[in-house]
């Protein structure tokens, strides 16, 4: 089958690509701490990008794994669709797992102290997970209706355990462009139509070593293998996803950019639930 598909024509490149930001998107969600223990208080943040229209906000919920589906938490869709979060009954919101609204109400979740009580002692080392569910939507002008197609819904698992070496979110120090370190917040001038090597610089301890207890009771030392997702507004990447230790990709700037100033993003997943991101402001000269 794979062989034949090589002969067949596939016009997927004419469709929008995951690495091209052309609408409101949730690109990443991070919990802090990345792997809480029962009783910990967890705060959440998300990388939400909306190049075309202002971001309206994002509503946050948490549920446990047992009340989630392949699509995240089972939330009454009518709860938020009514639009004005302030008019929704507070008890109904709490019962649905509402934990915050951005901007304004930082998503915060206190992990119940008995969250792992149903697990055996050995199982608590690996733990279980909670589900975070975020709905991001664009700003809606007064008198207009929310375009449901513009709403982005995302979910993320939050591991909860008593692991001896709990996970942490990776730390990104910054960018390098063609080997040059870029100062935080700097606007980078690029030539249209030219290739540039982008590199994300991680902190020394970003790639963690941790202990995993196997089913035979033997502890095994493992090392993370982060996964990098690169995003842009215009242009192309040589590879939109790279795997540790490949922290670089080549950015092919558009020959005729539609916008003089754009952004690039990179999201780092440690594949244990830890996540971090960085953006790079660019200007075409």
């Amino acid at each position, binding site marked *: *089958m*794979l*062989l*034949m*598909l*090589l*002969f*067949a*024509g*596939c*016009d*997927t490149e*004419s*469709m*929008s*690509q*995951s690495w091209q930001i052309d609408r409101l*998107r*949730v690109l*990443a*969600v991070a919990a802090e701490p990345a792997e809480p223990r029962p009783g910990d208080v967890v705060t959440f943040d998300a990388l939400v990008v909306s190049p075309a229209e202002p971001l309206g906000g994002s509503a946050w919920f948490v549920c446990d794994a047992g009340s989630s589906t*392949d*699509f*995240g938490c089972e939330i009454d869709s009518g709860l938020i669709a009514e639009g004005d979060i302030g008019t929704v009954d507070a008890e109904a919101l709490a019962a649905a797992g509402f934990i915050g609204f951005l901007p304004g109400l930082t998503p915060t979740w206190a992990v119940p102290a008995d969250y792992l009580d149903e697990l055996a002692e050995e199982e608590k080392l*690996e733990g279980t*997970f909670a589900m975070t569910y975020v709905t991001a939507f664009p700003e809606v002008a007064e008198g207009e209706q929310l375009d449901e*197609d513009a709403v*982005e*819904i*995302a*979910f*993320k*698992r939050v*591991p909860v355990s008593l692991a001896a070496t709990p996970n942490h979110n990776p730390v990104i120090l910054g960018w390098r462009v063609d080997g040059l370190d870029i100062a935080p917040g700097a606007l980078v001038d690029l030539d249209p139509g030219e290739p540039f090597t982008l590199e994300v610089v991680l902190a020394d301890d970003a790639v963690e070593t941790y202990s*995993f207890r*196997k*089913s035979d009771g033997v502890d095994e030392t*493992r090392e993370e*293998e982060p*996964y*990098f*997702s690169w995003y842009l507004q215009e242009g192309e990447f040589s*590879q939109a*996803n*790279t*795997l540790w230790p*490949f922290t670089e990709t080549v950015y092919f700037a558009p020959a005729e950019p539609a916008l003089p100033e754009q952004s690039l993003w990179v999201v780092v*997943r440690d*594949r*244990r*639930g830890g*996540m971090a991101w960085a953006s790079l402001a660019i200007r075409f000269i």
Partner: protein
Amino acid sequence: MKQRSAVGRFGLSFAGFLCLVLPKAGLAEEPAPPQAPGAVEELPPLVKDPALLQFVQAPYPEAAQAARIEGTVTLVLEIDATGAVTRVDVAVPAGNGFDEAAVEAAKQFKFSPAEDASGPVPVAVEFAYGFVLDAAAVEGARPDEAAAAAASAEAPITLEGTVVEMGTRRPVADFLIRVEPVGAEVQTDAEGRWQLRGLPAGTYTIRAVRPGYDTLQKSVDIVEGQATSARLWVRNQSYADPGILGTYHKDSADVTRRTISMDEVRRIPGTFGDPVRVIQSLPGAARAPLGSGVLIIRGSNPEDSRVYVDGMYIPYIYHLGGFESVINPDLVGSVDYLPGGYGPQYGRSTGGTVDVATRNRFPERTELRWSTDALDSGGVVLGSFGKEDQHGFGAAARLSYIDAILPAFLADDGFTVIPRWWDFQTKYQYQGDKPDKFSVIAFGFRDTLLLHTPDGYAQGTDQDTQGDVGTEYNTYRLGVNWDRSLGKHWALHASPSFGSDYAALDIGDAFHLIQSRYTFEVRADAKYTLNDHFTATAGIDFIAGWADFVIELPFNPATFAEIDPIADREPYALEDNATGFGPDPWLNVAWKPLENPDTLALNAGARLMYVIIPGENEVLAFDPRFSFRVQALPGTVIKGSTGLYHQPPQPFQQYRPDDKPVEVGAEQAWASSVGIEQSIGPAIRVEVEGFYKDLTDLIVGNRDFGSLNDSYFVNAGVGRAYGVEVIARHEPIGNLFGWVSYTLSRSERQDYPDEEWYPFDFDQTHILSAVASYRLPYDLSVGAKVQYTTGNPTTPYSLGVYDVDQDTYMAFQTGAGNSERLPAFWAVSARIDKLFTFKSWQLLLYIDVINALHGENPEFEQYNYDYTEKTYFAGLPIIPSPGFEVKVEF
């Protein structure tokens, strides 16, 4: 003026004519022959062609003679088991009074009867009756006294020679050799030799004539006191392989059996000369998705149909990509396609059956064939030896080189695709006069595919699916077919075989699946023939096997239901083995209750499926089957069947961790059909058949699976498939052959009683194929195939929810499963070939053009990353595939 029919001199042999055996049910006056290898009532191969013993010269039509018109009438002769001609039809008329004259003469022919393994059988043959004006008639020349001298036995030999067919170097009998201007005539013997005596010295013109061959003229000088020798190379007007039979059709328990002749197959566009691919142009067979090569027969799942080679089951019939089958076409004798209603000799499947029979006729002279096309190259050697060529042999091998060509068509982006395959087949056959006949066949094939990704390329957040992907499968079989005739009433058949199948899949460094399977099969049966009206056959379809498998996964399947994509996984490795066993006895009784046995044939049979699968679990099923054929009118047959068909769970459905008992049983199909066959003249046959298949106990995923105590699969599904199939076929008589087939069908499934019915994944409402090929002069052939099918069902999706951890979108299903369809598929394929014949070898050049009109046929839906946009994988573009074949005889 002397007039005569030139074919009057060709009355002693039938060799060299295109011999096409056509449906001829029920002409046997002798007891029905014993069963053929493989199964009860199976169509047995002929071991001896009918030979013309008595030729009758037709008078040359006066008007044609006066107008100096020549012609050839193509006849279809029905020959009974005594060799008498019982019916003559004109397949290709010549007009001018030739047709009537030829028919009247042919009715008086006498043949030696055709024989299969059991003895004489009725057949029908194509016969070209040629009318050629002799030189005297054409040129007004008159024989002189030298002609009389040339016929004198006392005179010395002055001119001699042989007639040899170009390309094949076969001697040709029954050529009329006429020497002008003296008018001396002689006919070549079986070795192609001829000689004339007493011709005086001088220059002469030799004119060699025989229907089916180009007339040859050659000038020779005869020197006083010497014998002049001349080798005459003659060119056959049609190099269709006379050793390959067309449809040979006797009474059968299989209501719908469509047999493909190799001569037809080689000319069908878009098939690369592969007989198995032709099945997909026959009624009941849905179009397989691009590159899959699966068989989707009468609304059945691909895994519900089984493919056999000489009765041996094989798991794969196609090489990678589905372009070519795993048996070299030169080693294929025929392909039986049974979409349904087949007898109890076949089992363990609820879908259709395809039985590929290897060649059972081998050339007298050793042949070497070589073929090369865009995908692979291969060679074949065929021949026979011993007394009366009782020992036949064949060997073939092919090797693909598409891995060397593919990079030229792919972008140099670090990704590489390396597909490779090879196959081989060998066969030895003994078919002597003794009651024992046997053959040995060994074959095998190996396919590998490696997809290499560049370093650092991430295929997703799952760390265990990174890296290269590779797969391999191979199959080997060694089988023996043995037949013994025990007098007038009994015949025995046995075909033991041993084989191995290997399949492996590697995904990155973490997924490794390997299965090695060894099987021992025995098909054996005993057939008792009481008389023309009653036969009974009892058989066994035995299989025993064991399998070793290795499973290496990045996670423990015991926790499969609770996979957490961000949890650490513990690699899992399992090495185990399993055994299986199934004897499957069967019985079939054929009864023809009326005085004329042709009028009504009834078949009743049953099969017991008993399988022991891993965990010592037993699957037991009883399959009664019944069929009938009624000859309502001459040329009109009404037929029908009904029966039960069971198949055991697929191997992957039999897996339970920790040796837990397998709780799934056999799937069942109750299949029925009724149809009519109508012959319209000797060349055209029309069949219409309706079918209904009720599917129960279908194995589906357990929707209530919650823990390892639950079975992964349950027999909760049901289904139904029904439709009408029509085929109108022009037999390969004369220069034209082809068919138009159309299937109107519907196939549906329901996974659980409280769920909705939905269309089967490959449900295709309309399936239309039209195939035609025409032989032009100068050994040119052109052909075309038109195919139209309804698009496969699809399920609609819309913008999904983003799984941040896995960097993927979960799509929302916005409609019922399989509630939409791909656009219809249509394609035109074309082929043109030209045969070049040289003295000692032949060269066939051809070009097959797939999708010649560049139909943009969607094969699969492809959504973008978030399911907001949709496009299609288009089908193949215009693909011209040139190739050549070389044949040399030694």
